[in-house]
């Protein structure tokens, strides 16, 4: 049986960003700039999500000449369900903790 760990605020942010436009393939640096997150935090989250089958990764089919192919990501069906459930669980928690809960989005070394 797989134990489901509560995702960290950073992981939730990544999940949310991917879920907002779940059809589109995204790339790592794009997510880094969107969420103002360092590569050292972003990639471990993406790797863990992929390990858990929540994220699918693929190489760009038709890269721009002169630039190497990008590694692209989007949520799987399970990933979308997980993101929706996580967002649903997170909303009451934020309400319960009041405005202080919004400051939970602090840099922390925590995984998916």
């Amino acid at each position, binding site marked *: 049986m797989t134990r489901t760990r509560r995702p960290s605020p950073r992981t939730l942010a990544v999940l949310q960003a991917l879920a907002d436009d779940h059809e589109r393939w995204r790339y790592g*640096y794009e997510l880094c700039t969107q969420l103002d997150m*360092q*590569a*050292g935090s*972003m990639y*471990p989250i993406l*790797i863990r999500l992929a390990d858990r089958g929540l994220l699918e990764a693929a190489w760009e089919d038709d890269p721009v000449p002169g630039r190497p*192919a*990008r*590694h692209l990501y989007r949520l799987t069906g399970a990933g979308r369900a997980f993101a929706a459930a996580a967002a649903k669980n997170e909303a009451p928690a934020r309400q319960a903790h009041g405005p202080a809960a919004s400051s939970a989005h602090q840099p922390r070394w925590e995984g998916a």
Partner: protein
Amino acid sequence: MVLILTLVILVVGGLVLARRGMPGSDAPQRIVAVAASHLPPGRTDWGRAMTAELIQVTGRIPRWRFAAGVVRVSLFPPARHRGVVVAVALSAVLVTAAATAVAAIEAPSLAVFAVTLGVLLGVYATAVACRWPAQPLILPRLLAATVALAGASAAATAAVRIAIIRPAAATDPTHLFSILLAIAIAGYLACVLTPPALGEHASQAMWWALGGALASTVVWVVVAVTVQFNPEQITGYFSPVSAAAVLVVSACVAASTRSMPTGAKAGVLTALIAAPIHFAIDMSALLQLHRYVLTNQFDVTKFAHSGYPNVASYLISDTLGGYIIGGLFFGLVALTAVSLVAGAVASRLRPAAPERSTA
């Protein structure tokens, strides 16, 4: 002066080689390439992904920040077995705390050494645990790891013995030497346990490195047992025995593989395996001297104002400090230079084998 010059040559040479290896690339790109290549086998796609992403990161600071992030992922990749990582990290914290507490009670001058060594080895063990399960070790690597662990233990034990037998000699008000010794022991051990990539010649290079280290240690023991030495002569800066071992190993491996990097890496591994053992032998021999005599006017004058309770403590402290900096740091730099030169020369000595005709 010679050592500083060697260091400068090595740094400049390394930069030139790095630039040649990746023309048109900047430092962050080279760092990312190296870091990405050190990801565990199952994560290589992610390494390629991060390398590809760097192309579009513009600006000096963002590129450096991105490179730092990739280094962080490379050092501590997401673990497949998180429980193993947590267990290793917790064990490291407990062992470090226990060792520091024991040191603080039994040999207070070693408390900083104990905590530094514990933290460094704990971080290393945690980084290794992040890559669990590891690939199976080949026999020579397993033997080299065993010898390196024995060497690190012997070096730490030698420091403990000095602190217990001659507490005044181990007193280090600045803690500089305690920290440097811990860095040296942990660094040497980590480099042998996680050696650089040696490619298809890994087994051969490891056998040579192990053989060279053990052969030089045998000579070292014979010299320590048979020759009555003067503490002032034990500097460890550049031992002919170590240099000969490194030279032979680098040259033989480079000649047989026709690869300068492989020869140089084997030579450096020889030095890394042997140095802690040599340190332990020299420090043990130093402690067993029956008479400690100051033989030059500089030391006589310095001792008078040093505050040490006796000549033995002064000489041992002086030798220990000199050995840590000269032997374990600058000595390695000098031996690296020897291995690079030997590897470069020997890799050109043996001509390439003629291609066999299949006709």
